Structures are given as C-alpha cells and as structure tokens.
C-alpha cells in the first residue's frame, strides 16, 4: 500500500447524500478478477451517457476536476454494498482523499486498506469546503496527515480527527496482514484456548456428519 503523508490537489464537489457503492461502481462490472484499471467504470451511470460518450454535466468530466485528487462528498458517503471495487476505482482515477460529514462503515474501512484517506468533518465545515471545491482550478487543497489538517484554497487550516492506529498505518503504508502475522503467538494462544472452550468450532467445515 502506498504511504499517505501529504497530498495537494484539486478537490471536486459531489453534493449527493447517500451516494451508494453501486453508483460509484456498478455491479455489472464486478465480474473482473483484477483490482487495477477499474476507473474506466467509476461512476459509470452518471459519468457517461447511454451512447458511451462523457456526460459533460458530471463534475469529473470537467477540465480542472479531471485531475481531482480529493472529493468533497455529503452524508452517508459510500453506503450499500461492501465492494472494495469502489475505492479501487476511485484510487485508479487518482482520488486519494474523500471528505464528508459521514461515511458508511464498510466503505470507510475499505478506504484505509488502499491508501485512501476518508476524512469526517462537521457538516458546516463540509459545506464550506464544498463551496471551495466549486472554484474549479482554484479548488486546490492540501491534506497533511501528520498534523491532521486540511488547508483550504485561502490558506485557512482545518483540523480533523482520526484514530491513531489508522493514521500510523497510512503514514507508513503498513500492510495489515504483515502486522497481524507478528501477533502469530497471540493468535496461537487464543486458538488453543478456544479449542478447549468451544471445540465444535474446529474442523467444522470439513466434518460433515
């Protein structure tokens, strides 16, 4: 996973509440067995017209926002399906940060696994950032993860909260599995105890009666 330390880029406004992961990445394209190259299907239904041409009204089809690295979203961003294809497609497009008043839990989690930083900020602040994001080429923001700040186009800094574990993983680009494997002894001890306390759970899927 790529580290996330500091990010400067154009922020695109996406003022849609309950933006579900079907809208971010439609189910029909889940047939892929790859996790790369998925941006071609990102926001498929709203980004393209029925004939396959770009919908000029959609924000990511407009000049300054084609290079967007940040999305400013609305409440309950990423609700619905658990598909990680949603963050994979965002990442492939170049989005490394999504800012919204609230996120659906699974999408929020999935972002961190892919080096995308989801930032929760109060609605009033998101409303201001949404206005900033409408400034086209001037909608440039800087995210500094170490100091947990978003710098608005006018230079004002906004602080955001983030749990320390997730921050550390992003800053260092830590592979979760490698981290957990270091706890192999703890896992082994747990399994030994569980095998005594709840023995019926072991060998379960292989011992059909």
């Amino acid at each position, binding site marked *: 996973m790529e580290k996330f330390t500091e990010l400067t880029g154009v922020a695109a406004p996406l003022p849609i509440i309950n933006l579900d992961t079907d809208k971010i990445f439609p189910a029909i394209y889940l047939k892929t067995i790859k996790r790369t190259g998925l941006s071609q299907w990102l926001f498929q239904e709203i980004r393209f017209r029925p004939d396959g041409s770009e919908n000029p009204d959609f924000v990511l089809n407009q000049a300054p926002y084609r290079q967007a690295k940040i999305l400013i979203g609305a409440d309950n961003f990423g609700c619905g399906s658990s598909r990680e294809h949603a963050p994979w497609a965002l990442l492939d497009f170049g989005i490394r940060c999504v800012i919204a008043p609230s996120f659906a839990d699974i999408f929020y989690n999935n972002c961190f696994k892919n080096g995308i930083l989801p930032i929760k900020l109060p609605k009033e602040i998101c409303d201001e950032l949404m206005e900033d994001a409408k400034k086209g080429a001037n909608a440039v923001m800087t995210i500094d993860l170490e100091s947990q700040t978003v710098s608005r186009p006018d230079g004002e800094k906004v602080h955001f909260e983030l749990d320390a574990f997730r921050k550390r993983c992003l800053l260092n680009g830590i592979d979760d599995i490698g981290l957990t494997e270091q706890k192999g002894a703890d896992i082994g001890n747990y399994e030994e105890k569980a095998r005594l306390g709840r023995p*019926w759970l072991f060998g379960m899927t292989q011992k059909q009666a």
Partner: protein
Amino acid sequence: MAPPRTLFDKIWASHVIAPQGEGTYLIYIDLHLIHEVTTPQAFEGLKLAGRKVHRPDATMAVADHNIPTTNRKAGAAGITEPDSKLQVDTLERNVKEFGVPYFPIDSIDQGIVHVIGPEQGLSQPGMTIVCGDSHTATHGAMGALAFGIGTSEVEHVLATQTLIQAPAKNMLIKVDGSLGTGVSPKDVILAIIAKIGTAGGTGHVFEYAGSTFRDMSMEGRMTVCNMSIEAGARAGLVAPDDKTFAYMMGRPYAPKGAAWEQALAYWKTLPSDPGVKYDKEAHLDAKDIAPHVTWGTNPEQAAPITGRVPDPAQVDDPLKRAFMERALQYMQLQPNTRLTDVPVQRVFIGSCTNSRIEDLRAAAAIAKGRKVADGVVALVVPGSGHVKHQAEEEGLDRIFLEAGFEWRDAGCSMCMSMNDDKAMNGERVATTSNRNFEGRQGKNAKSHLMGPAMAAAAAVTGRLADVRDFG
C-alpha cells in the same frame, strides 16, 4: 458484580485476541464464507505473498452472485457468459489450490451464501462470521456477530483468521406486539429503516428484541437481520432462544451428541443481561406496521402500500430534497401518486432477503389459482438447492408454473443482476430483494422493494397491490 452486557458485548469479548492499541483490537473469526465475486483479488494477494489459508476448516466457499439460474446441472462448464465463467473457474481453482471446502454449483447444497450458512448449520450462535458481502448481517438471526467486509479484509481473514476492528456501539431495536394479517418480516424491517433512516445505525450493531421478534420464525428473523446494513448497521442480532436451538438441531454442520450439549450450554449464556443499557434505542409497535413498498432509490424511501408518493416540496433540507427529486425523476413517479396505481412489468421473488421456504410459501399462497398479469415477467429464484427441492416436494413449483411464473435454480439473480436475470429497457420491478439503488436490477430499472406475498400480488395484478385485498 460484573456490569450487565449485551449479546454483542459478550461475543466481542470472547473473540478479542489482543488489543491492537489506540482503540482497535485483533479479533478472531470463527467462520469465513467466501464467494466468487469478492475473492479473486484476495487469493491473488495470498499467492503473491506466498501465504496459505490459515484455517480452511473454518472457511466455506460457494458461487452465487454471478451464476446463471438455468442449466445448472452442467456445472461451471455450462456457464456461457465468459466473464462469469472465468470468475467461477477462478474460485474453483483457488479453493482447490488452498484446500477450502466448496459447494459446487450443480450440488443441492449450493445456494445464496446467506441462505446456506444457517441452512447447513454452519452459522451458529455466539460465532463471529464474516463474508465479502454486506448482507452477511443475515446470520445475526442465529445470534452470531456477522458482518460484511471488503476484499482486503477477506485476504486478511484467509491469511490469519483474524481482523483488526474497533468495537461497535449497541443499538436496541425493540418491536412489540403481533403483526397484522398480511404483514411480513420484510415490512417490519422496511418500517424500521424508514423510521431511523439509511444511516441510522452507522457505527452500531443492532439487537432486535421484543415480542414481535420472539414470535417470528427463524426465516423471518433472517429477513430482518439481512437488511440491517440498509439502515447503516454492519450487523444485526437476535438473541438465541429455543426456536434457534430447535432450528440448529440436526443440521449437517451443527454440533452433535456431547458437542451439541456443550454448545447448547454455551449458547444459553449469550442473551443480553437484564438491565443492560444500549447506546441508542428505537421502538416500534407491531400494530402500526402495514405492508410496505419503496417508492425511491434507497431503502429508507418506503411507505405503507396504502400511501402515496411523497412530495419533495415538503422537504426543507436542500440536499435531502435534491436526493428525493432525483429519486422520483429516476423512478418516473409524480408526487402524490397513489402507490397502488403504480404499474409493474417485472417481478422478482428471491435474494438473500426473501428466498427461503417460508417466503416461497407466502408468495405461492397468493399465486395459487391466479395468473401473472399480461405484460408481466415474473421470476421465482429459490435461495438454495434444498429450498428448491423442498418447495417442489410441497408442490409450490406447480403453483408458480401454472400461474405463469418462471421457476429457476438458486442464486443471487436479479438482486444485483450480474447474470442474465435483469430488467430490460428500464422496466419497473416489484422485488423481494434488499436494494432499490439506481441501476441495481438493470439499466434504468425501477425497483420497488417489498415482501414475497406483496410481490406475488403485484405479479397477478400488474401493479403494486395490497396483499390484504387478497382473500
């Protein structure tokens, strides 16, 4: 004395391996269900890193999302769509290479992953269960902590049988009283979501309690728990009780003999302690719940069938109003339209929400002696090979076929329309599935969520209909 704990608190505590520090924990996963759509990239990751599946004996694989619901006797070789075949072939190759147990698509044991878990006795009280699918909450009906995960987490569980998680908060959803005639568990959960909203449960685990759930069948509890995610909760649980234990007993993968007795004693310790406090609560009265249908593009946009399409002009918040306007535009519905005046062209009875035997019985009771309306295509897709078999034993297939419904093989089918089962040309669908998102059932498809008897009623009338009008 130890403070009282909820069902969730107890399951959580018994699965913490170690604190990860900073408010997160490493927790153990008892059962990992996997399917063809969200695992190829996870297995690829394992291979690249040279890792094994840590506990194949706690993992079960099945293909369900992306398979045809016809010609299944031919197995994977009978899949004609190349991308779907590649995905199923990839799963079959991976389970073989990593030694993971698997129900092949021509087996009677195959079915929708959230139907077969309980059906096979794999999903048990007190377990932690995960799957790369947000409707994993279904297994909460067994009194298990079950939730959906992304593919990176699937890989993490395959490699280590653990997950790094922060504990959720507890939310009590209490419903008391008897459901009226024609009111189904689907109506209960649609009413709950309409009340608390699609993000009402974010960060929380639901516990469904009260006499309505106590009196509900296991299948009904599964329908309710299934849609917890549509209210934002990753998991929803019902405390295990005698009904749960009776359901579990004798199932293929349930413990037997002395192990059964040991498990049963443990399961009985799980229900929430008296006097325990929840972080949040919602209360509903069963007698206020009518058969519901959705009118919009999000499960919270639901109303009693006797109601009308709401008017966005009544909504103050600009983003909420815009969302509602967009929904009505997509659904091609005018405010104040009577819901029973809305025509449908397609009907889908199936999905992990409503494809169990009880659902098929409820739909068949309406279909019996009636005909699918002219111009309506209606599909019945059982949740598993066993459900299909049982329905055929009971003669339900004859009832559906005589009424003009199609009778298919088990799979996710039109819930997400990855296979050929989909609405064409923007058709309007009466569906027993769980999501009415834009495009979910086909390009421009207009989905109305409802219970199985309501969907059958829509099929025979050709419009949204109140099941209570059918004698």
